[in-house]
């Protein structure tokens, strides 16, 4: 009887529906905000002074882009005072591989890029380890190297699958088009530059259990790799991530090998080993956003409607496969962005080059795919004689239309809705006129304004990853501790999970505490990535809480003398909904019900589980419904370009973004603004330059420090930035009606790039089509301005 009632109470709540007075939806600060501002929040490397006797690890990095290692002698290193051990391939008891595909040796026999770690030195101090590394003698036999995308394409040096997305007949689409254009576009990658570099500290306990503190977005995979390197089973390795000082995808795959180095050192020496990359090591050793090359041919009808698109996208994968295949899939699945293209053929391939192994980065290929399309529209609009905003509007998906990979674009009507709203909020039409006036009277400075939309698919393309677990404990005093498989990197996941738990249990937020992510609490987790952290873990936390709540409802029901399905939990009180007689006025305190449950031997903890329903994906045919839903947004940006230098100023940006019903508005606002500025950095400032000469330094990353690789600073924050969350936007397929927010806003920054294009065009004659490099640095913009000036003969 009791069980039946509990099940009824459980079934009554849907995934998306919110109870009355929910704690989700409140604008609360980051759950660690007070720890952040006082400096009390601990990151992995902050554990070092709390771990006496730890050894320090320092990598020896290859000075060649590609070379066979014919000998490696460690005697001189071991003679350096304070050097304890040199870790080499011979020390690996398990599998010498930092990935899962056997293409990523942890201690390589062949250096595959400039900066590749060939061995690691452990020292009593970092200084000793560094001096030890300098004393290791390595004989390198240099091999030919491939560095640029052009070189790789010419040499046909590719790796992994070469997927194709097709619909209809691209050739026929192009043939019937009234206007055809074609072009090429090569654009740069992006360094994650998480302010906290990669770090891990490993120790072995008296029973031989290996504990690795790692700054990782994917503790379960870090655990797997550490275990296989050590030749252990997963249950012998625990990985914990306190919090990360930024992730952005950079800590989805890359931490594994580094954690394995620390763990190997700890196992071999019996002492804690600390591995922390300094900035130079971090930037020269670990992967980045993939640079891409695209060649394309596009056709439009008389009215500017897309008819056909044929494109080949080649990503620069670096030296090993890493996450390049799923990144490429997502890129191909986002070339369409918000636009319906009837006949399409999109080919993808991954170049293998002698560079760092490019990897996940916020958007995971989506931004690259979309950039190709937005660049096409930006370049073609003047050739078609159509205003670029109008061209974009005309091509938006309509309800009922499907993407090239066959998925229905659900809620397509939100695209014109966000566009109309952002245009109105930005006062776009009036400001266009103002800008024309400004430009007519300012020969050396020009302004531009542009609107670009975003449609971004949410879920891991790989269906199996779309599952999550959680472990929730309610203690006898009523306090709640939640564990879930997601990691906190600043995106506010833990804040949202506390809100979800407080909502599901009907308790005040202050009663819910969150424990650091650990693989021995929640096993077999997916990476906190693809913006899915809140959807997946929120579903699992909610499930666990609802199991407990259902059990408590039975206990409370007896006291309230109502059926369990009439028991309501809210704000720490337990009441009967629509109760009659005595029960109507009775309010039980949460603690009281918890106590009673304990005494009645009712279980107060639960493991929750969630998997996203309705997904399927065929990675061979590149067809299916890989995404649960799409997140939509649009931005209007205005910029000013200085004709003397090409430097630009971001004057104002307005954003309308669809986060469903926000779980935590302050957190979501932060994700939107932060993603936007990070996207603007990628598109206008952040430049990875490698030495591609044939000289000594071939393959060396030239922008390998904060002094040469410039991140956005206050100077890149638009003077005015207005963000508005789309209203009445509940998503019925996600936890409490919310939508994922981590990645999509990055692509709102296309509005900056397209506004720059407009401003540059204003230096030239009407109808001048502007080609703009990416990143559009001051120098790149200056040359575009010069081209525009030349076109008007001035």
């Amino acid at each position, binding site marked *: 009887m009791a069980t039946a009632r509990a099940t009824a109470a459980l079934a009554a709540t849907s995934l998306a529906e919110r109870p009355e007075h929910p704690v989700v939806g409140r604008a609360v*600060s*980051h759950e*660690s*905000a*007070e*720890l*952040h*501002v*006082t*400096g*009390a929040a*601990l990151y992995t490397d902050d554990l070092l*002074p*709390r771990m006496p006797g730890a050894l320090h690890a320092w990598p020896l990095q290859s000075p060649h882009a590609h070379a066979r290692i014919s000998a490696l002698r460690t005697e001189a290193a071991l003679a350096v005072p304070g050097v304890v051990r040199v870790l080499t391939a011979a020390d690996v008891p398990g599998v010498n591989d930092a990935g899962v595909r056997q293409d990523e040796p942890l201690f390589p026999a062949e250096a595959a890029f400039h900066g590749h770690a060939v061995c690691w030195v452990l020292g009593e101090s970092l200084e000793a380890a560094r001096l030890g590394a300098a004393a290791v003698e390595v004989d390198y036999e240099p091999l030919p190297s491939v560095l640029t995308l052009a070189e790789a394409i010419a040499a046909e040096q590719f790796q992994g699958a070469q997927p194709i997305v097709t619909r209809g007949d691209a050739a026929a689409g192009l043939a019937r088009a009234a206007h055809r254009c074609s072009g090429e576009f090569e654009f740069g990658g992006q360094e*994650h530059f998480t*302010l*906290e*570099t990669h770090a891990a500290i490993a120790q072995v306990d008296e029973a031989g259990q290996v504990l690795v503190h790692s700054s990782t977005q994917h503790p379960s995979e870090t655990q797997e790799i550490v275990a296989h390197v050590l030749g252990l089973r997963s249950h012998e390795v625990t990985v914990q991530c306190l*919090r*990360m*000082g*930024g992730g952005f995808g950079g800590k989805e795959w890359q931490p594994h090998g580094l954690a394995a180095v620390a763990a190997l050192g700890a196992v071999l020496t019996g002492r804690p080993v600390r591995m922390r990359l*300094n*900035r130079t090591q971090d930037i020269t050793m670990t992967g980045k956003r993939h640079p891409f090359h695209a060649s394309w041919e596009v056709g439009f009808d008389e009215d500017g409607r897309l008819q056909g698109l044929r494109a080949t996208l080649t990503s620069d994968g670096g030296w090993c496969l890493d996450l390049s295949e799923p990144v490429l899939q997502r890129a191909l699945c986002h070339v369409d962005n918000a636009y319906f293209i009837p006949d399409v053929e999109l080919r993808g391939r991954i170049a293998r080059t002698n560079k760092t192994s490019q990897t996940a980065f916020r958007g995971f290929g989506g931004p690259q795919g979309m950039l190709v399309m937005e660049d096409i529209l930006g370049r073609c609009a003047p050739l078609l004689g159509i205003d670029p905003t109008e061209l974009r509007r005309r091509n938006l998906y309509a309800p009922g239309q499907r993407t090239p990979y066959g998925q229905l674009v659900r809620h397509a009507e939100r695209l014109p809705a966000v566009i109309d709203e952002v245009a109105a909020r930005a006062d776009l039409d009036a400001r266009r006129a103002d800008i024309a006036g400004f430009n007519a009277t300012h020969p*050396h400075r020009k302004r531009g304004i542009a609107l670009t939309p975003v449609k971004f698919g949410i879920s891991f393309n790989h269906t199996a990853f779309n599952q999550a677990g959680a472990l929730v404990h309610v203690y006898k005093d009523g306090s709640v501790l939640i564990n879930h498989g997601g990691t906190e*990197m*600043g995106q*506010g996941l833990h804040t949202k999970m506390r809100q979800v738990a407080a909502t599901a249990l009907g308790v005040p937020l202050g009663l819910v505490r969150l424990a650091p992510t650990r693989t021995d609490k929640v096993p077999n987790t997916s990476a906190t990535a693809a913006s899915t952290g809140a959807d997946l873990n929120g579903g699992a936390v909610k499930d666990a809480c609802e199991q407990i709540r259902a059990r408590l409802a039975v206990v409370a029901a007896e006291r309230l003398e109502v059926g369990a399905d009439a028991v309501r939990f809210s704000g720490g009180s337990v009441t009967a909904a629509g109760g009659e007689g005595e029960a109507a006025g009775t309010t039980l305190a949460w603690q009281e019900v918890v106590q009673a449950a304990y005494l009645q031997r009712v279980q107060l903890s639960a493991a929750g589980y969630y998997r996203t329903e309705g997904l399927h994906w065929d990675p061979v045919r590149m067809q299916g419904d890989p995404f649960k839903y799409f997140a939509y947004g649009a931005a209007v940006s205005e910029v000013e370009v200085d004709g*003397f*230098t090409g*430097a630009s*100023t971001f004057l104002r940006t307005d954003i309308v973004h669809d986060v469903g019903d926000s779980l935590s508005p*302050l*957190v979501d606002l*932060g994700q939107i*603004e*932060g993603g*936007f*500025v*990070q996207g603007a950095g990628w598109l206008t*400032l952040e*430049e990875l*330059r490698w030495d591609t000469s044939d000289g000594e330094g071939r393959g060396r990353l*030239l922008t390998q*420090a*904060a*002094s*040469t690789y*410039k*991140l*956005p*600073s*206050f*100077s*890149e924050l638009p003077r005015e*930035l207005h963000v508005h969350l789309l209203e009445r936007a509940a998503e019925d397929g996600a936890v409490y009606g919310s939508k994922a927010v981590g990645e999509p806003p990055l692509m709102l920054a296309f509005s900056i790039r397209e506004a720059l294009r407009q401003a540059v065009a204003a230096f030239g004659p009407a109808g001048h089509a502007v080609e703009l490099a990416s990143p559009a*640095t*001051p*120098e790149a913009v*200056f040359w575009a301005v010069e081209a525009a000036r030349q076109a008007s003969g001035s």
Partner: protein
Amino acid sequence: MGSIEITVDGDPRAAGAIGPHTSLLDWLREQGRTSAKEGCAEGECGACAVLVARPDGAGATRWTAVNACLPPALAFDGQEIVTAEGLGTAPTPGAAAELHPVQREMAERGGSQCGYCTPGFVCAMAAEYYRPDRAAEERAAHGECGPNGFDLHALSGNLCRCTGYRPIRDAAYALGAPAADDALAHRSMQAPPPPRPTSVRDERGTFLRPADLAELTALLGETPEALLLAGATDAGVERNLRHTRPPLVLAIDRLEELRGLHVTETAIEIGAALTLSEIEHTLAGRVPMLDALIPQFASRLIRNAATLGGNLGTGSPIGDSPPALLALEATLLLVSATGEREVPLAEYFTGYRQSVRAPGEVIKAVRIPLPLAPLTAFHKIAKRRFDDISSVAVAFALTLEGGRVTTARIGLGGVAATPIRALATERALEGREWNEETARSAAAVLRGEGTPLDDHRASARYRSAMLEQSLLRLHTEAVI
């Protein structure tokens, strides 16, 4: 060895056995004070920022934010440091957090996401919060200033990868004035700790802070290869990134003889060990060229430590002060155990990071002759507007009479192995009418000056184009 002691967040801590090559940041972290973080170890990100009690020039203390990753800890012997941990306290079991106003604004407005940059932002923001002339100041000319007088440039040396900065700007602009009982405001009314001679020798090297100039020049006479250490904004980068470990370090940043600023009828003399921030306050607009230059030089955090002596001592071809000082026809006062001499800056640099400065000599001051040319400008071309190194820097100092250019002095950085004067362009301007045609033809000459290179900052072609454009811009923008 005397006892070395640094006061951190009110607690004096012994800092004996650390050698001259441990940064303040590493020392703090080894002490378990881990709020200050390492984000770059080269002064670029500000994650390591802390507050130091520094003289305000009027006998009291100015809380000054600096990068802890660059200077050696030993440079702070006898000094007072405040970190984010000292500004407020985190919640502990049973006790709520006690947040500093800066911390409260940051926490409540979403100023932290991952939180890694946050302690550094908090310290940089606190320094500006306590700046005595903040509230009284009119909105800064650059317009990047809050209604509370908060100068956003105070945060130009702090990077955040997460927030996009808007909430941090809002937090900064929402700050009020320090309360009457504010401990740090109170502390700032008294004098800062005076510098004290420091001497530490161990197997890692020797760190000495001489008591006066005579002691310095004597030491330098004996060991001319010693590293003179001023603000450590170049030397700290050398140590952290290129791992230089000079056996003898001589700290000169607090030597009174190097910290004067004197104005006479014929010259302004600026002590080599004054920080750029101090020069900016003290000159208060007297030299418009420097007024244009200093806000574009690095970040506030760096300017709070960096000196002119260091900028010239480094002798980088992309240093920002040499082009400006060349155009101002500055001279350098060099002093050694055997005497003092004055060298025109135009004759100072002899090759890539080479100069006529003899072993044993120290730059004592920079002398700028008066009167100043009436038309000056400093154009810095860089990728990022806040805190970036110049691809090209151009400094103009022109005198016009009756519409003609009577004298033209142009200094260039970033286009040769040393900072240079644009002599051909100067000749192309002098004696000519100051009009568009002159500007255009001289700009074409300027384009050909120097021998710029291609590198990761810019192409040679762009550098040359920027020279040309800069003269066109001067003509367009100059108000005569």
